[in-house]
């Protein structure tokens, strides 16, 4: 009998270790800002640098939900996020036109690149036009790995296919991962396939991949990030003050300076270029 009680007590002791959960949840609700953003801003580590500064300065607590741009905007359109940091311009314009956002401000850009195996079976290396390169990939039937997840990158990829005029959907050489950028790059590397990637994620993963940059510098490959506050008139529960504070911070001198130098130390070149205050057209689309 005693033993059984001893074991029960031991279990109770073990259990009591866990009885104080979730004490961290004690912040006032309006201090929370839900930021729905793309995986690239989190996976590159940029937000890990910017958010602590913002939080310290303003006292807000940012809950970063890193998803594809498509899902981020879907969250915004349902009032389930306060502020968006996304890179899917056409979808963003529709988001604004539908009255889901308050203001859409340019934050930064980097660029997309077409990467593929060093053997380059479609011989696209050094081509100047992304659409021409896509045409060649299709013509040679080389495997192309698409994100297929409604992310900003996926949207850009479809734009380029459209510009190339090639039929790609349902083709045997056109495959979709449905995964994030990092995983899609890994799959492309493993299958010796071509894919479209944002430069930041590619640079961050380069060492393990064995994929080369084959096409870059075309205007269509520009990757532009905007910050958008979700419309509180449509969704009264949205924390607009917090969203605005965050958006203001992203375009402030201070964070723009950080963006300018972020990644230089680690990758030899910046991952993003600050653009606050500029016009989208000035970037050369």
């Amino acid at each position, binding site marked *: 009998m005693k*033993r*059984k009680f001893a*074991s029960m007590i*031991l*279990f109770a002791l*073990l*259990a009591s*270790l*866990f*009885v*104080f*959960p*979730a004490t*961290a*949840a004690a912040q006032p*609700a309006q201090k*929370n800002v*839900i930021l729905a953003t793309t*995986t690239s801003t*989190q*996976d590159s*580590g940029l937000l*890990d640098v910017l*958010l602590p500064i913002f939080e310290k300065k303003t006292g807000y*607590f940012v*809950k*970063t*939900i*890193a998803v594809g741009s498509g899902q981020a905007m879907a969250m915004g359109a*349902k*009032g*389930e996020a306060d502020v968006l940091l996304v890179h899917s311009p056409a979808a963003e314009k529709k988001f604004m036109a539908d009255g889901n956002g308050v203001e859409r401000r340019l934050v930064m850009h980097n660029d997309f690149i077409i990467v593929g195996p060093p053997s380059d079976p479609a011989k696209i290396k050094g081509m100047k036009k992304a659409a021409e390169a896509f045409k060649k990939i299709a013509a040679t039937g080389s495997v192309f790995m698409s994100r297929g997840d409604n992310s900003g990158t996926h949207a850009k990829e479809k734009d380029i296919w459209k510009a190339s005029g090639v039929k790609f959907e349902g083709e045997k050489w056109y495959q979709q991962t449905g995964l*994030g*950028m*990092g*995983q899609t790059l*890994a799959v492309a590397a493993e299958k010796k396939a071509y894919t479209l990637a944002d430069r930041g994620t590619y640079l*961050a*993963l380069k*060492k*393990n*991949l064995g994929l080369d940059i084959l096409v870059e510098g075309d205007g269509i490959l520009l990757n532009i990030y905007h910050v958008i506050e979700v419309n509180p008139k449509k*969704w009264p*529960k949205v924390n607009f003050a917090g969203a605005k504070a965050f958006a203001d911070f992203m375009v402030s001198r201070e964070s723009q300076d950080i963006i300018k130098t972020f990644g230089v130390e680690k990758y030899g070149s910046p991952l993003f270029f600050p653009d606050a205050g500029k016009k989208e057209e000035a970037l050369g689309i």
Partner: protein
Amino acid sequence: MDIILEGIRQAFILLVTFDAEVLGITWFSLKVSGTATLISLFIGMSVGTVVALTQFPGRRFVVSLINTGMALPPVVVGLFVTIFLWRNGPLGFLEILYTPAAMILAQAVIATPIVMGISLAAMQQLPKKLRLQILALGATRLQMVRILIREARLPLLAAVMAGFGGVISEVGASIMVGGNIKGYTRVLTTATVMETSRGNFDIAIALGIILLLFAYLINLVLTTVQQRERPR
């Protein structure tokens, strides 16, 4: 292969240097999954015991539901919990989406059917005559249940381990309802997913090893308790 060795090396470094972030994440994982397991024990064992010891119409259907619940995919639980907890969802007033509380809730939903199903089986496999004997000796119903639970404690501890193992290792629900927020809702599994997509495979492996290590330690304690007596 190199990358696995590098991962083991990283895990060792992170552990011996008491890396603050990794320790924080580990402790938080144990707290969330431990609390969820406790909740699931409370609900799972009581319902499992009641269903095991009583007869009622539709009992077989209820048992089949419980057993199906043991196979609940965490990501489906995560999806439903998220939708319920949305600001504009039915439980939005709680304002707990993307908090540890939401993670505990989702994990408890995952673990409860597991604990329930195993407790049910454990209580049901006790000899029927044992009940009669206990009652014949003049025990009240409550005393009888207590004795039966004590008799079934070996498989019941297995239920604890299965429930805990199910939630500490799941990632789908935790990432959806918790959001993998740094220093707030990041647990070992969601951190592993993130480091993998960042291409930091060595750190991802290290986190995986740490997760296994702690799961092992906890199960070691439970197993010691369970196996204290020699098999009859």
